[in-house]
């Protein structure tokens, strides 16, 4: 059997000894999009933070294992996981504007993050970024690279975040509520851009969101989290149209849909 890109096996995650995620298992294949949905506090973000080794002080995986391409990331030394973050596993945060340094230009920060992982000249990085901007159909790439985060709108910053994650061409991309802070028109563009990335590079994507509509549009598989447990996991069509668990039924039933007639 082929090794899955990401293999989460019976994972329990605790903060300060208190388990917040219990017995969660799922896999992501190359080029697959997995959507993790559930209400706030259900442990969605904690899961992807654990896979990235970003749980922070007090947080730890207390049971189970997480494998990236067959390599156990929980046992990995800090230095090793640091090298994996970026080229192997990329991450898009909910509020990219806040995760960027306010006093340095976008281009500078982009160069820094690439330079940590590979020898590349400023010009090469710039060219690669401009190519990506073009792929994302964003005009004015040069202006964006010379801008500071506060000079850009929320939507623009978010796309910079996607670009920063994509410029290292990760095999696996984690996206934590990437579109929640955006207007619907911008959200639609960002979602299409992420799908394009999958098509162009075969990136596996794990998207954490509470927006069922987005997941329905882009995901192949869906995992439903409720109070730290994985209550339902399966093909998108099965989960959305034939939910088995009560919570999933309630969740899907609460989604307001636009009736286009």
């Amino acid at each position, binding site marked *: 059997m082929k090794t899955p890109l990401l293999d989460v096996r019976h994972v329990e995650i605790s903060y300060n000894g208190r388990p917040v995620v219990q017995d969660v298992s799922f896999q992501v294949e190359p080029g697959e999009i997995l959507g993790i949905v559930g*209400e*706030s506090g259900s442990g969605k973000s904690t899961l992807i933070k654990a896979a990235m080794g970003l749980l922070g002080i007090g947080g730890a995986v207390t049971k189970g294992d997480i494998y990236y391409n067959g390599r156990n990331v929980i046992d990995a030394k800090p230095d090793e996981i640091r090298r994996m973050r970026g080229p192997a596993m990329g991450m898009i945060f909910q509020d990219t504007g806040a995760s960027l340094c306010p006093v340095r230009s976008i281009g500078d920060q982009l160069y820094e993050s690439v330079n940590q992982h590979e020898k590349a000249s400023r010009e090469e990085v710039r060219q690669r970024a401009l190519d990506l901007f073009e792929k994302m159909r964003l005009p004015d790439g040069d202006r964006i690279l010379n801008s500071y985060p506060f000079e850009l709108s*929320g939507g623009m910053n978010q796309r910079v975040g996607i670009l920063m994650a994509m410029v290292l061409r990760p095999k696996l991309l984690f996206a934590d509520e990437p579109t929640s802070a955006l*207007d*619907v*028109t*911008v*959200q*639609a563009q960002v*979602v299409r851009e992420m799908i394009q990335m999958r098509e162009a590079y075969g990136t596996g994507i794990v998207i954490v969101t*509470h*927006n*069922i*509509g*987005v997941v*329905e*549009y882009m995901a192949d598989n869906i995992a439903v989290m409720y109070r730290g447990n994985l209550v339902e996991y399966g093909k998108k069509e099965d989960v959305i149209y034939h939910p088995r668990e009560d919570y999933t039924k*309630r*969740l899907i*039933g*609460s*989604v*307001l*849909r*636009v*009736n*286009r*007639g």
Partner: protein
Amino acid sequence: MEKLLEIKEIKKTFYKKKIPFVAVDNICFDVEKGECFGLVGESGCGKSTIAKIITHLITPDTGSVLLNGEETLFLRGKKERKLYQDIQMVFQTPQDSFDPRRTLGDGIMESMRNQGMKKHQAKERMYELLEMVELPGEFASRYPHEVSGGQCQRAAIARALAPNPQLMICDEATSALDVTVQAQIVELLNKLREEQGLSLLLICHDLALVQKLCDRVLVMYKGGGVEQGVPDEVIQNPQNEYTKILVDSVF
């Protein structure tokens, strides 16, 4: 139907380093008694500026705002204070809209106490209000950080109902909530509208919510109104280019 609120040709310009920025440009609409009117559009299109103009927090350059047929823009003193009671707001992040160091009960009672109501009367009314928003009475002694977002938003609605308002403005009141909780709040708003005859002005960017709750909707883009009508018609048969993009963007 009787008109509760009439907005006539309001315009508001902000200046940043003396460069004018027209936030609201020639907006007209009215809200009838017992109606739910929706205001949709992307961030920065002027929705919240309109709310601030209606609530008398900023003054428009031109135009007029009528409540029950009476011009509100130049009210002062007693009449202005009455206006502040008649129009109430519910905000996006409920936790931030309560004083973190005072209980929810205190927050709900504050406006009544300021009106000169006796403490025991205010308390009685506060418990009635909690019941109205389907919160157990014990929540009166809780602090904002001790309750969930949905519960806190219910308390915020109770607080808005305290001065017996004629119009409630919900500025993205459900956007920060989980979908299951959002559905409950929507149900509550609908109930209040039917039982209390409350008029609602719903500011939001969620077309599905507007379609479910609103009788009429105004779509805004860059400060101007681009389309107005019954939500079903606007969504199913958008006339304006921007409205089309907006409707197509919803998954």
